[in-house]
Every structure is written in structure tokens, then in C-alpha cells.
């Protein structure tokens, strides 16, 4: 595995732990279909939460949260629908969350969770 993929895995693990601590139920991780991949699928009360995790080792190329564009958000929305169809479950609400994980020089991670980006 490349260094960047190791970092990505670490970030996703941290994000999942963060969500669990925040009281969300993790339903699925790294779910793939023809259109792409969902990092984390979780449930919070009656809402389906599709979570995109972005991990970076520095802000030289922008912060992790900045890397999520409108196109990316729209794709996550389509993926959410595909996940629901594939699993045949119903939710009151679909929410897209973004989790930015940043590794500082010291090796410490900071996790930032933005709920409901659209």
C-alpha cells in the first residue's frame, strides 16, 4: 500500500471512531458500486448519513474540507440513493457529512466534522 493510502485508511478509521463517539450507528464502510465509493454510511436517528472522509498530511494544497467540491457532493447524493436501493431500507432524511482529518507535523491528527453540507 502507498503511503497516501495508509494515511487515507488511518483517517477513515479515526473518522468512524469519531462518528461512533458522536452517537451515530455505522452501517457500512467503503461501499462500492459502478458510480463510486462511499467512505462511511451511518445512521443518526431517522436520518441516513453518507459521510465522505478526506485526509491530508498538510495544508500546502488546501485544507481537507476545501477539497470537497460541489460535484463531489452531488455524486455523494447519487451514491446515497444507490445505497438505499441496494439495501432496500427507508429513511426520513438523507444527509451528507464531511469529515476532514489533518495530520500535523508532530503526527497528531485533528478531526473536523461538518454536518449537512447539502
Amino acid at each position, binding site marked *: 500500500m502507498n503511503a497516501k493510502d495508509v494515511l487515507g485508511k488511518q483517517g477513515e478509521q479515526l473518522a468512524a471512531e469519531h462518528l461512533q463517539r458522536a452517537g451515530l450507528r455505522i452501517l457500512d464502510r467503503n461501499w462500492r458500486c459502478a458510480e463510486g465509493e462511499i467512505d462511511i454510511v451511518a445512521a443518526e436517528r431517522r436520518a441516513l448519513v453518507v459521510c465522505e472522509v478526506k485526509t491530508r498530511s498538510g495544508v500546502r494544497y488546501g*485544507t481537507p474540507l476545501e477539497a470537497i467540491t460541489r460535484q463531489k457532493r452531488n455524486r455523494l447524493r447519487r451514491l446515497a440513493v444507490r445505497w438505499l436501493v441496494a439495501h432496500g431500507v427507508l429513511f426520513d432524511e438523507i444527509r451528507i457529512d464531511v469529515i476532514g482529518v489533518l495530520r500535523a507535523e508532530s503526527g497528531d491528527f485533528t478531526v*473536523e466534522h461538518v454536518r449537512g453540507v447539502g
Partner: protein
Amino acid sequence: MPLARTHSIALVGIQGHPVEIEADIENGLVALLLVGLPDTALREARDRIRAAIVNSKEAWPQRRITVGLSPASLPKRGSSFDIGIAVAILGAADVLPAASLADLLFIGELGLDGRLRPVRGVLPAVAAAAAAGFGTVVVPADNAPEAALVPGIRVLAADSLGSLLGWLRGGCPADGAAGAAVWQGGSLPPDGGGPGPAGAEVPGCDLAELVGQPTARRAAEICAAGGHHLLLLGPPGVGKTMLAERLPTVLPRLEAAAALEVTAIHSVAGTLPPGGPLLSRPPFCAPHHTATKAAIVGGGSGIIRPGAASLAHHGCLFLDEAPEFSRDVLDALRQPLESGEVVVARLGQTARFPARFTLLLAANPCPCARSAPAAVSSAAARSACTCRPAARRRYLARLSGPLLDRVDVKVEFLPVGRAELLSDRQFAEPSSVVAKRVELARQRAAFRLRGTRWRLNAEIPGSELRRSYAPAPGALAPLERAMDLGEISARGVDRVIRLSWTVADLANVARPTIAEVSYALGLWLGAAS
């Protein structure tokens, strides 16, 4: 608190309108949205502000930021909202105490490195802020002397966003913070010490240098005393331009209110001298004859800029080679000549610029511009005018009748011989002597007009002139005769009466008599020097 509020000023012409800047931070994709009719320069503020905040060692909020400028329907242009937007964003991000920002007003542009850059139009903007009840404005350090001209306002001048933030965080408005200084508005001594000595000292320029043209010097004195318009007609090299350039040297300094008004116009145009910004001398503006209508009366796409006519407000507008100006440019001057202001209408907004100037026109008598065809010797005949009468007539006809009708004094320069030059030398008075007479005459007029909003004889409207300022009984006889002969229009009669008041003021005569009216009529019809 995810919401913060600051204020700035949007300028339309030289009129400032308070603008409320709101910044709101909410969950969403990282973005900065700017709403409220921004133009291109203001839209680019998004990138400037981000770089400036990051380079001032502050964190850029990783959220969806919405910045609203209200009233939303007022078009906002330029870069002077940068500081206000940046501070509002930092207030919404809880970097600054949002409550302390709401009463402040910010004007200025941000550099990418966080420096505060000076902008145009600070004086009218700060004046509008004071009128709207703001007590403190923040401006870039380079604009501070200009902003401090406004009485009754506290000006905080900062050189960078970093030092400004230090001051705002401290909460206490003290000038202890490095890179920031507090100026008290209206505390600056006006440039050169107020409306004291008459006559602007322009180095190397004095009316006494215009030897051989006593009539023209006298005409300049009368125009300066009463604010009348002047046409200088004559062949090249007799001193038309010289006279026009020396007219400001006999004008008194501007009064405080007028100086502020003139400075505000020049501030919007971006023509203020750095350092001592208050213009206390009457401006002199001499546009080239290729100037467009927008350059003369004001206009331009986007930000409406004042034209030469407004830049010459309370001063002189000199059109050299007047017939070479395009006709619609000259005729566009008719509105400001009549009303003293220019109204420029552009998409969605109308700008008013004051434009009460003394018009100076200089013209050659014909296209070849050689001396008059009254040649006697054969040598003179060779250098005499070769234009046909029709060409001469057409040339001066470019100055339209309605325009010439508004010119009070017409002087024809004749070429001078050596003997005249030498003999006139002892009579030519320096500008300082003439300026004293002009100031005395202006004081007499101002005393007579006290209680009205006019200061100069040229400003008295026709109806008022006939009602309250009629010349002595019987003094109008020469005018009635000229009117019967069709030499003068009804408006011309009013103009001659105003002129006769100025002649009387200069001669310290209480009321124009037949002598002053005859003299004024001679000036109006065109006197040969």
C-alpha cells in the same frame, strides 16, 4: 456567534450611502458567497480577503460563508469594502468580538499580504459616515489625513489588517497599538493656514508678465472678482494662454466649505496630492481639445467619475483652442454653466457633481491664425490672414451662439508693437496687487448678498437680479438701445447687469450707474485691447 455586522460606504458620484455588511457562517461546503450587487472589482474581493486573512496569521473559517451587502439593490463598486468584509467574516468566526464591530465603519482595500491600501473618494465617504451618525471610521493609514478633514469624527488609521485586528481585539480604542493611530477629525490645520492671504502663489506665474495687454488684464480682474466667464480671442503669441494661466493667481483662497467640496471631487477623481490633501486654492483645469464629452462633464462606465468641469468647481475651466473642441462637448457645458452642476445618468443610478466654474475660452480668429488682415506694409501683408471670410465665419461659428451668449466678457487681443510693450511695462501690476482689489470687490459682493446662498455676482439668478439688485435709475439706457438694435439677448441683458455690479464693486461704487453699465456692455460685446 455565526453572524457579525459592520458598515461601509458606497459612493455614487460624490454622494455616499451607508452600506451594512453582514457575514454569516454556516455548515456547508467551504465557500465564500458575496451577495448585494457587487461589480467585478468587488467580486474579486473574495480572493483578496482570503489571502489577506491567511497572511495576517488568522485562520480562514472552513465553512460556508455568506457576505451580504445591503441595501441589496444599490450597486456597489470598487475595492473599498474589503476591510469591512474581512472584519465581518472574522467577527462571525468569533476571532473578534462581534458586538464591538457593529458601530464601526470601515473603508479601504486589502493587499494580499494584509496591508491596507488607500482608495479613492475617502473624504466624501467619511463625510457621509459622519452625516449618518457614525463616530469612528477605520481607514488605511495613507488615507488618514484626508479622512481627518471631516469635523466631528474619530479616524482610526491602520497600516495592516494585523494591527487593525490587534486594536479591535483589545476592545479599547487607544492609539497604543503598533501600526495604528487615532486622528481626531477636523483637527488638521488646513493647507497653508486657511483662507488668509489672497492670491495663490504659483511659482513663475504673475499677471505683471502679461505686458502690452492692459485691457485683457483688466478683463481678467473683473472676471476674477465676479466669477464671470471670459472669451479670449486673438492671433497666436499675444498671451491668451498666458493670461488664462495667470487668472488663478488673482483669485482668493477657497473658504473652508468650498475647499472641502473641491477636495471631495478631486478625491473621487483620484487627483489629490499625497500628504497635504486639502485643496484650498481654486483649481485650474485645462483639458486638451481632443477631450470627450465624458472627460469634460463626467461619466465613464462602471464608476461614474467627475469630468473636467467638476474638477474645476470653484476654480477655472480653461478651454484653449476652443473651436477645436467637438461641438457636442462645448454644448454639453451649457447645463453646468446654467445650473452649476452636472447630472450624469447611468444604469440604475444618477450622479450629481457640482460644477460651478469660471469658463475661460481661448480662440484664434481664424484657422490660419495669422494677424488681422489690416495690413498696410507689404511685409505685414505677407504675414496677414489668408482665410476667406466664409472660412473665418465658419471657424468661430463652431462656438455656438448659445454658448457665446453665456460668456460675459469677450476680449480681443491685438498684436502689440515693441513701443507698446515697453511703455506698458510700468503699468503692469503684479498679481498680489490685483488680488487685493479682487478680494475687496468679492467682500463687497458677499456683504451685499449676505443672507442669500450666493457669494458672487455671477451666481445671482435673473429674477432676483431684477427684483433686488437693479442698477441706478436710468443706468440701463445703453442696454435698452443695444436690445433695440438686436445686439443682445434678454439673457445677455441679465449678464451685463451682473457684470456691471462687479465693475461697480471694483470701483467701490454703491450701485452701477450708466458708466458701469456701458463699460459692462462693452465687455460683453467684445472689447479690443
